[in-house]
């Protein structure tokens, strides 16, 4: 008998959450959080995540979220205290602001690793937990070279600009609005912006390569240029939208001006002009957001493999943009009451367009359990850390 070929199975993700059911959980969460002056928020978070994980199905098995609310509460208390101290220090000693910021930037990678580790260790599928290899040394090594290059280049360029006569002249002009320190952020941006897709690549690769499902290790196979391609198109889209929107606003203002015959009436229409301008800029920005979300997610997931198993993500720009836009409108018009509905339909769309291609899923071994602290996770929350996956 011939050697048996591994059976390849295409398994679609399925999301079974229901808006009304989640609305009940959501409203009780907020109610109890207010009643307990915020303490219940840790339990609320666990219930919300358990609802979303528990309703996400793959091959007739659901995911589960297993975090202990008490650990999250501890983490939250520490994170909030730190933030309050941070902002008070910032307020009272603005001079220390730079050093505080530097400290924050320096600690950020470590906090990110702790957050990911806690999150993964409490996510499970088929009774097997995910895990994250906490390698603090590695995360710093990953970012140190590109950031050092940017800082050195910024410093060299700034020193050079500072020494030129042109800058001195600008600054010495009477009533000049120009200060040479203003140049520093600009020079920094000039060097860091072209590097952003690469930094995103490094971060994504690090996160996926450190992830395990049981004993099965994840591997990220995309290259840096995949990120550049996506960011470049998003940037061009952004420029195109600004260009078209500016012309459109100009035409509208001109038409209103001509109808009223005088520029003085422009003031009365300023409200409408503001609204039209906001729509012209704001609505297309959802499209860029949707593009980034759809295309970047597809690229990242399609290149994330567990051994020979892989994800297939098929999000599309227009539906994702529409989801973001219509969700935003619904949330504004309902004064927030449609937040649960919006979250459910987004989760459903993503699940409906994601598949897992498996050869080995039945035989994943569990690793030994390890204790995790929720501190990192809550720092991540407090700083609005987007895990970007």
């Amino acid at each position, binding site marked *: 008998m011939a050697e048996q070929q591994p059976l390849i199975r295409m398994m679609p993700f399925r999301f079974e*959450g*229901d808006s009304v*059911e989640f609305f*009940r959980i959501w*409203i*009780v*969460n*907020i*109610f*109890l*959080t*207010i009643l307990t002056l*915020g303490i219940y*928020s840790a*339990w*609320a978070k666990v*219930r*919300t*995540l358990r*609802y979303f*994980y*528990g*309703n996400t199905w793959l091959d007739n*098995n659901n995911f589960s979220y297993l975090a202990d609310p008490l650990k999250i509460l501890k983490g939250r208390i520490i994170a909030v205290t730190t933030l309050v101290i941070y*902002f008070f220090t*910032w*307020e*009272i000693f*603005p001079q220390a602001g730079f050093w505080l*910021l530097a400290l*924050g930037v320096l600690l950020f990678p470590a906090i990110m690793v702790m957050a990911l580790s806690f999150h993964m260790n409490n996510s499970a599928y*088929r*009774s*097997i937990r995910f895990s994250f290899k906490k390698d603090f040394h590695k995360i710093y090594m990953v970012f140190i070279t590109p950031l050092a290059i940017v800082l050195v280049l910024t410093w060299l360029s700034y020193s050079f600009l500072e020494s030129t006569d042109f800058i001195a002249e600008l600054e010495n002009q009477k*009533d000049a*609005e120009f200060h040479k320190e203003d140049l520093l*952020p600009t020079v920094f941006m000039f060097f860091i912006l072209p590097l952003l897709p690469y930094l995103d690549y490094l971060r994504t690769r690090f996160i996926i390569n450190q992830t395990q499902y*049981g004993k099965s290790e994840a591997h990220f196979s995309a290259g840096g240029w995949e990120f550049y391609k996506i960011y470049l198109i998003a940037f061009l889209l952004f420029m195109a939208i600004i260009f078209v929107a500016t012309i459109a606003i100009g035409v509208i203002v001109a038409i209103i001006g001509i109808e009223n015959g005088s520029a003085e009436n422009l*003031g*009365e229409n*300023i*409200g409408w002009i*503001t609204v039209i301008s906001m729509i012209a800029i704001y609505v297309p920005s*959802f499209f860029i*957001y949707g593009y980034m979300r759809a295309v970047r997610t597809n690229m990242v997931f399609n290149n994330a493999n567990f051994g020979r198993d892989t994800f297939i993500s098929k999000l599309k720009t227009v539906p994702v943009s529409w989801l*973001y836009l219509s*969700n*935003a409108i619904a*949330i*504004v018009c309902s004064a*927030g009451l449609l*937040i*649960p509905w919006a*979250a459910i339909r*987004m989760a459903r769309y993503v699940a409906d367009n994601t598949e897992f291609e498996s050869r080995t899923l*039945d*035989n*994943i*071994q*569990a690793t030994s359990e390890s204790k995790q602290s929720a501190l990192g996770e809550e720092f991540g929350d407090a700083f609005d850390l987007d895990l970007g996956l």
Partner: protein
Amino acid sequence: MRLKGRLFDGKTSTSHEAILFFDEHGNIESKPSILSPVLFKDVVISSRVGSTPRTITFPTGEIFETVELDDLNNIIEQYGGGESWVHLLESNTQYVVCALIFLVAFLTWGSIWGVPWLSTQVAYALPAEINTYIAHGTLETLDKRVFKESKLNEERKLELKQSFTALLPEKDQLFNYKLIFRKGGYIGANAFALPDGTVVVTDELVNLAAHDDEIISVLLHEIGHVEYRHGLRSIINHAGLTALVLTVTGDVNSAGALVLALPNVLLESSYSRDLEWEADSYSLAYMQNHNMDTEHFANFMERMDNYAYEFDDEDIEGNNVNNECPVDNDMDISDITGEEKTDGGIETDTIETTAVEETQVSPDLGWLNYISSHPPSEERIARFRNKSK
């Protein structure tokens, strides 16, 4: 009683169909008999979240997962257990409706009255020195970014400083009041109060006034800002509103991150308008008590209005009417102080701006008034004019 589900060994991702049998003595047995018999009191049953599957974890590490939620409920009840009270709240429509009504009422009350009330209480409970701390560094920033050295002659300055000292509240002065002069540059005629009692008046404002009582009415308005601790109250108000919005949107952050700023903008500009009105009240009451003509404030506001429009006209018709120091009435000091801070990437701009309270004219912009930081000038002028003899 029997319960259908899937049994995981807790070590691999493999699962088997299984049935658990529960007898009246609290023994659990499985079929097929993979498990050694175990007592009901020794297993851990996950709490119910919506209609997601629940798990029974055995002391030996095996996990049994079931979607037969009603059957499981009956079994738990048979052993004298019950549903978790959180799930009872969530599944009872009456409770959910009550929670909803409570939340709508609480959030409306909280954002319109509760948080402003609390801000006032906290601001007055804190030691007055806090006001000095929050003003720290603000003047330096403004000097660097906006102001130029004052060109007024020393006699004039001294004269105004004497009038200013005479205006100060007599008994237990908590604030270190001082009046300083600066050339406003591109912000033109304006006055600012820092929370520590420093009042800044621009040369342009002094020159614009036709009567010293006009300047005095503005100084009173600024003293009102300091006396009523508006800087500190705004900071606390901002923190309170942020906490309220986070309570509602916290865990479901992907749903509408782009629209969450809106309620805060509306509520904070409403609060800012209330504070302006209160500062006006201070000025009005003082002038009435000291038999000054309140008409002066109205006149000055009108002059500020015209001054602002003259600049607009000049801009449109190229007619150099008021060339020295144009005022841009859309210019908000927050644009300046905020800019400095956002360079650092931390969003303290709103906090920083609130450390400054300024005199500003606001034309009536129809419904756009809802996002204006100052009440419409017409209303403020009418108020002072009505009280004029």
